[in-house]
């Protein structure tokens, strides 16, 4: 149908225009490159176990090694305390980081955007109720709550952790989306839709949502960062999912087996990876911020 073709043309145009501005930003280019490298690592994590079962990040133990060894030809980054390959663990960690970060961020953005739009658009009692709920959740320290929950229910599954992070991280997004909705609500094109007879549902999803989605995606990059950090902190403190190899988990093994100062080849890679991946998503977010908000652009761009 004609409509679908036209839509693609419009969004493509907007995307290309945004990309032009994004390209100019050094932060954005570095961030995107780093994210691509981590994505490659995540994809590559499927390769080592295929070469030899001893490279399996969780169960694969080198039959000839039963203690931590430094880098060698056989194990490029060395092995951990029971002879598992650190490189393959690092690659698997990238996969987990993406999984946790993107899915938790996506869920919290989905919740935050819907709740923010509904609160902003409906106003009055609905708005008050939803925003007070958001305030209450916002002041709860996520990490502490997850710690208490896991000490109550034992070890948490990785998806439970993702869900909890999402449930605790939507209020910030919803506040921003709500204020954006409040200003959109009084714009004449929303009134024009009302005069045409559009339902509340139609106005929210056809007219308001396309105008707040860019902002939602911006916040998604920042949420990815916080989700990865929370997961890593949990795992390091020993409350992670014992069935998954994440970077936080690797750090916990280093610490628990007393290799903290003895095995830098084991301690440094996951530490550096956690820092870099959060930094790269943050830089991506900052660059996207510039695309969306012309006031943040450099003077040179305007002339």
């Amino acid at each position: 149908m004609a409509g679908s073709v036209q839509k693609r043309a419009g969004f493509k145009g907007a995307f290309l225009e945004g990309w032009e501005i994004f390209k100019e930003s050094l932060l954005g280019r570095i961030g995107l490159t780093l994210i691509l490298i981590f994505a490659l690592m995540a994809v590559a994590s499927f390769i080592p176990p295929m070469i030899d079962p001893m490279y399996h990040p969780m169960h694969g133990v080198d039959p000839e090694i039963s203690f931590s060894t430094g880098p060698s030809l056989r194990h490029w980054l060395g092995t951990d305390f029971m002879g598992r390959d650190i490189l393959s663990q690092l690659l698997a960690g990238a996969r987990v980081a993406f999984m946790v970060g993107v899915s938790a961020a996506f869920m919290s953005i989905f919740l935050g955007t819907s709740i923010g739009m509904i609160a902003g658009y409906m106003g009055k009692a609905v708005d008050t109720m939803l925003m007070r709920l958001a305030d209450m959740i916002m002041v709860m320290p996520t990490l502490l709550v997850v710690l208490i929950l896991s000490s109550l229910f034992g070890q948490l599954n990785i998806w439970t952790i993702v869900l909890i992070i999402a449930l605790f991280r939507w209020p910030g997004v919803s506040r921003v989306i709500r204020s954006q909705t409040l200003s959109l609500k009084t714009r004449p094109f929303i009134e024009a839709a009302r005069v045409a007879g559009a339902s509340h549902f139609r106005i929210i999803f056809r007219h308001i949502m396309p105008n707040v989605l860019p902002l939602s995606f911006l916040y998604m990059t920042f949420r990815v960062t916080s989700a990865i950090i929370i997961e890593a902190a949990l795992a390091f403190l020993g409350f992670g999912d014992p069935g998954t190899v994440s970077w936080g988990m690797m750090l916990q093994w280093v610490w628990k087996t007393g290799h903290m100062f003895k095995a830098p080849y084991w301690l440094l890679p996951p530490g550096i990876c956690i820092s870099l991946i959060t930094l790269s998503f943050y830089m991506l977010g900052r660059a996207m911020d510039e695309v969306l908000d012309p006031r943040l652009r450099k003077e040179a761009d305007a002339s």
Partner: protein
Amino acid sequence: MEVTGEHIVEFEGVTKIYKSKASLFSRSSEEVVALRDLTLNIRKGEIFGLVGESGSGKTTAGRLLVKLEEPTEGVIKLDGTDITKLKGGRLKEFRRNVQMIFQDPYQSLNPQVSIFEAVCEPLVIHGIGNSGNRKEMVEEMLALVGLSPPEDFLARYPHQLSGGQRQRVAIARAMILKPTMVVADEPTSMLDASISAQIFNILLDMRERFQVSILFITHSLAAARYLCDRLGVIYKGSLMELGPSGVIIAEPRHPYTQALIDALPKFGQCGSVFHYGTLLAEERRGIEDGEGKGTKEFCPFFPRCRPARAEKCANAMPRLENLSPGHAIRCFFPARPSLQVETAGSSKCYYGI
């Protein structure tokens, strides 16, 4: 088309008061009267002009008529039915019959929605046509508002169009449902004069073609004279003068209307232009901040009116009274019909818009 005597819209004693809520620091809530006791009728097939300065309440009247806002008091009827209490299916039917063209075409089209989708949306909402013939209906309407060839515009987005083109799209969107009543809220105030004239002609054409009645809201008497059959002049929420547009422009009887005509720019061979001179350069003081603030009734134009007499105008609100059939004014001291001085609007002297 023929303007019949039947009324399509009736405002009966409509008052709209905006209240600012009392806050923690100011106990008293402020009230702003946007419209006071408005009573007027719009006939079927007529273009009725509502003229007034900024903040006079003319836009409020339009917003009440399309149910973007509800009156504080009074009744608004469309085809004899009270629209203030419509709900559900009746409301949707009303939405189909009454449309609005907004002032700012840069704001009234969603930047994320293509022209085709924008014009088509009312059809989708009201379930008219199917995906096959909607495209033809949209193209036909775009051609009628002068966007041709229409296929070229379907895929575009508002930011790719000029102001005049956007306002044409807004008109197409309003007219595609074939409404019986359209409110045009200063549709040309954001456009150049040459584009404005084209928009006026489109509105006239729409009236011919679809027998639609139009409430045309404007601050420009010249635009109103070009387009409207009858005029209402509104000041601070009160209707001051009401009558056929030719009569109101040629022989205004209310001091405020006369002041509006004085304010029009004129060009051409105007000779010595007649000035009514009814507007005081400086407002009279002492009414609103005197004793009994807010309770006293007085003519809203009194503070700026030169011919006013304090003993009467400052102590009572005049009623809207008929001078001749179809011509009514709200003034204790209506001006005499002017002797035919050479005024603007004659053959060689023109009003600017």
